[in-house]
């Protein structure tokens, strides 16, 4: 059995290296008119280093990271709890489903004007946006995963004497994990996209705000540094959940992967 859950770049790194090399060569040879608008990769790296050393990048990054972590954790936990209850209990499903179905399609940023008026521009605002961004998809995926667990497993557990709660905890939730993790993985990346957008529009600190400041100063290198940070964080968060999912389920889902 192969070890799973580890990031194995293998040949995947090659296209990235080629892309960076082309970027560097193109910029250095001035193949794109206007060097000011197209800094080389090495210049961007240098700016990344300088921003890291003087603390600007770290401060803004930590602001965004804290918002994402708090908003995502609370939104996901609430989504998981309500999703499990909806998937397991028909009465709760009937009670919540219409509401969830109505609110789920609204993009997280669509809530921004309303929340700005309700909450004001403060630290709660981005956290509330990330909460909403995480809650609905995680809730929806969790409920679907729980509902789709084959009834025969529930019946088997019943004949062995398991109570409803025990069946939910020991059979249904574990079997729904792959679907639940699909929601968590997608939303982990989405949370970063949304926080950047929210910070660009309404919050004066964070990577998104830094992006907007760089735009007003016409600092292309800083803009690219911010985009690289965003890309790395989306990638890392999604990978983190892929890793956790593999740790929890690879023993019994290996046959699906081979």
């Amino acid at each position: 059995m192969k070890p799973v859950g580890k990031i194995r770049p293998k040949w995947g790194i090659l296209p990235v290296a080629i892309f960076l090399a082309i970027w560097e060569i193109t910029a250095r040879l001035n193949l794109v008119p206007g060097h000011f608008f197209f800094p080389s990769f090495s210049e961007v790296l240098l700016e990344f280093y300088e921003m890291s050393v003087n603390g600007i990048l770290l401060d803004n990054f930590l602001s965004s990271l804290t918002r994402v972590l708090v908003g995502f954790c609370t939104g996901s936990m609430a989504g998981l709890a309500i999703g499990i209850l909806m998937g397991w209990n028909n009465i709760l499903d009937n009670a919540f489903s219409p509401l969830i179905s109505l609110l789920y399609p609204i993009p997280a940023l669509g809530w921004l004007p309303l929340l700005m008026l309700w909450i004001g521009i403060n630290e709660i605002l981005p956290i509330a946006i990330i909460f909403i961004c995480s809650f609905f998809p995680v809730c929806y995926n969790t409920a679907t995963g729980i509902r789709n667990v084959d009834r025969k497993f529930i019946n088997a557990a019943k004949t062995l004497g398991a109570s409803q709660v025990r069946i939910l905890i020991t059979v249904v939730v574990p079997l729904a994990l792959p679907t639940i993790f699909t929601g968590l993985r997608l939303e982990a990346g989405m949370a970063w996209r949304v926080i950047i957008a929210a910070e660009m529009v309404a919050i004066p600190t964070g990577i998104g705000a830094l992006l907007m400041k760089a735009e007003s100063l016409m600092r292309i290198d800083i803009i690219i540094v911010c985009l690289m940070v965003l890309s790395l964080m989306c990638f890392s968060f999604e990978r983190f959940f892929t890793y956790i999912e593999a740790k929890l389920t690879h023993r019994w889902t290996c046959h699906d992967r081979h």
Partner: protein
Amino acid sequence: MTAIELRNIENYACRGVNLKVFSGELLVLLCPNGAGKTTLLNIIAGLTGYRGSVHFDGRPIDELPTQERKVGYLFQDLVLFPHLDMASNIAYGLRVQRWSNEKIELRVKELLRLFKIEHLAAAYPWHLSGGEKQRVALSRALAPYPKILLLDEPLSSLDWQTSQYLRFELKDLQRQLGITTLYVTHDLTEAKDVADRMAIVLEGRIEQIGRLEDLQTGPWAKQTDQSGIH
């Protein structure tokens, strides 16, 4: 002594079923697919609704939920929990009944030895062959010492050779344990090999019940060709 009694059982698939299963016997329900045999087992296990009455050892159990009926059920597609290894699958019923860890370990080892599957204790269902899965599923059903064993086409997913071998193993085991067993199949040869008595189920009704020799001379024998039982 009567271990299971069904009195005038009716639902979407059963039409006035009356049946007595004696203590320690293996009764085969022989019927074509779609005749309501799995529904009968589900009724006994409390997994589906019905009118009428089910008695265990002379006491009605209609109000008891599945969890309290103490039946061991081997489902047609075995239904091993895919996220648990084989030892944990077998131990599942014991854990939910709050056995101590030592007792669980002893019981699991005993069953693994009985079914000659000690080497599979740490394996997951996707690793196993049909015959191995069947043994594990039976171990799991027997682990909490059920009063009654329900076997729903237990050999249908196996190749002919394994099925031949396992049916005798099953019969020996049932005799050895003395557990009252209802065994559903549509295969007449399989039924003959394992049955103490047989009941013929057609269109949700018990058409005939008795020993094999009684059935061979009964009205059912004339209908065999049209019944879909082979």
